[in-house]
């Protein structure tokens, strides 16, 4: 089976999932998951995001569309009764539920954007829940000229550290920051309850996979007032005991902005260090 077939099958195995659609947008795999209404604590968007990110090396955006019945539509069955799907469904509505899925809370998911009741009579309503926590690759600084990691393979040269995902796991009080450099993905982790500092810590942890000697630690991190259309903006200060580094970036969430700001602060340092370490 192709990777997309595998991914679609695994998505359809998640509780309540009815459909999955895919398209490429700006070098990103856009995954749309349609699901039955869910009770609290399902974390479906996060599960779908994890599945998608395992099946592709591209950045992934997952949009979760939940369907709610305003009025149970009548549908025939072999016995002439209404079908089971026409009533308010429980969280585990789909019988295809045997995929191993983490028990996650919805706390770490973005707020629902209710696109509202459409033709309210005899139709379902839909919530669009876009899991953009782990979406776009972030170009932080232009370090192409500073780093040459792969002189033997110039076609694969990619020297910018890019943010792939920021994921929070309230059940384990953990935050993960996924980054990629020259095709190598790494994951940094930190204690999630430390707020913005956790995102900075996790980003530094991820960067240490590329540069184990990286000694920077967060000095401070705070949100900056910004126009609404910019999203959340976070500034961070980092220190290695000598020269401070500062970064600022925007993101869909505070944590994502903090991770991007950390890359903003450290990308040039990282590029120079990697350049020096490369013969």
């Amino acid at each position: 089976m192709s990777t997309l077939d595998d991914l679609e099958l695994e998505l359809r195995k998640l509780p309540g999932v009815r459909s999955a659609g895919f398209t490429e947008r700006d070098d990103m795999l856009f995954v749309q998951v349609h699901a039955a209404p869910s009770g609290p604590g399902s974390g479906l968007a996060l599960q779908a995001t994890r599945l998608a990110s395992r099946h592709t090396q591209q950045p992934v955006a997952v949009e979760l569309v939940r369907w709610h019945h305003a009025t149970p539509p009548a549908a025939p069955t072999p016995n002439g009764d209404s079908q089971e799907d026409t009533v308010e469904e429980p969280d585990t509505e789909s019988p295809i539920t045997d995929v191993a899925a983490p028990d996650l809370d919805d706390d770490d998911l973005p707020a629902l954007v209710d696109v509202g009741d459409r033709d309210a009579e005899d139709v379902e309503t839909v919530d669009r829940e876009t899991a953009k926590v782990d979406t776009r690759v972030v170009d932080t600084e232009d370090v192409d000229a500073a780093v040459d990691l792969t002189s033997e393979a110039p076609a694969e040269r990619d020297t910018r550290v890019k943010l792939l995902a920021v994921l929070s796991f309230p059940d384990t009080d953990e935050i993960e920051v996924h980054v990629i450099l020259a095709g190598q993905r790494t994951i940094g982790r930190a204690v999630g309850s430390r707020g913005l500092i956790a995102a900075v810590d996790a980003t530094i942890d991820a960067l240490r996979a590329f540069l184990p000697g990286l000694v920077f630690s967060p000095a401070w991190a705070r949100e900056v007032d910004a126009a609404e259309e910019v999203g959340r903006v976070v500034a961070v200060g980092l220190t290695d005991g000598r020269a401070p580094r500062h970064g600022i970036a925007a993101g869909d969430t505070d944590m994502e902005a903090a991770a991007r700001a950390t890359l903003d602060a450290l990308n040039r340092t990282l590029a120079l260090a990697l350049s020096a370490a490369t013969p």
Partner: protein
Amino acid sequence: MARRMGLGRGLAALLPEPLEHEAGNNATPVSSNDVNEFGAALVDELATQESGLAVVYQALDRLVERFDLHDAAIVVDEPGLGRQVFCAGRRPLDEDDELLFTLEPGVYTDPPLETDEIDASMLMNLCAVALRLDLLRYDAWHDPLTALYDRRSFDRLLERAVSQSRRYDWNFTLVMLDLDNFKELNDREGHAAGDAFLRSLAERFQRALRFGDTAARIGGDEFALILPDTEPDSLPKLIERIVGEPAQVTVSYGFAVCPSEADEVDRLFKLADERLYDAKGARA
């Protein structure tokens, strides 16, 4: 019927009454030779292709192409599958399509087709069978407890990795892991706790591994990894991330690098296994 007319870009139900799907009814009414040919070709593909989902989308694409449609979709609702929706081109739905989900199972096309042009019931049965086949294949390849690959599929994947390594001069590291005191955990806290630990460990595998890495449960408390382009030096940190600190159960592991240390499946397994048991001996 108003709901059908409300479908995006005029998507409308095909064959409203005769082709309403009857769950559990395996009969496939055939209304013309064309339908027979169309259905027979799809069944042939379903029997020969590795992916049932791919056949479903091929069927939708053919439907669109053959009748010069703008769009087509199939909705099925069967015991064991729930309501499942398939849209031509595997595309995401836009807001105009949302009413699709208010409809009973059926085949929907834009523009609507005449009732004798295609057998919607056959298409819906095909979808259901294809999805069931894929689920069976999935179950056959995966460990039911952890959803990781099982031993049989891992053997095939390892053979493929070795073959690709030879052909393309790729390298990978085979890692075999064994939980040191898993039996004690089972004895102390019960098998339910042991199963929960294995599931959480599998989840950690999935989170820690990269795209292209492969993880499998090859025995009760034995796991194996295929890690392309991974140096053995990086393994301790990877294992630490997977197992976590503090760990309920410690892990011993052995590895073998292909092709530099071995380039055959048996030798790779043997070398990794020897190192695993050396590590277990050292830990003991």
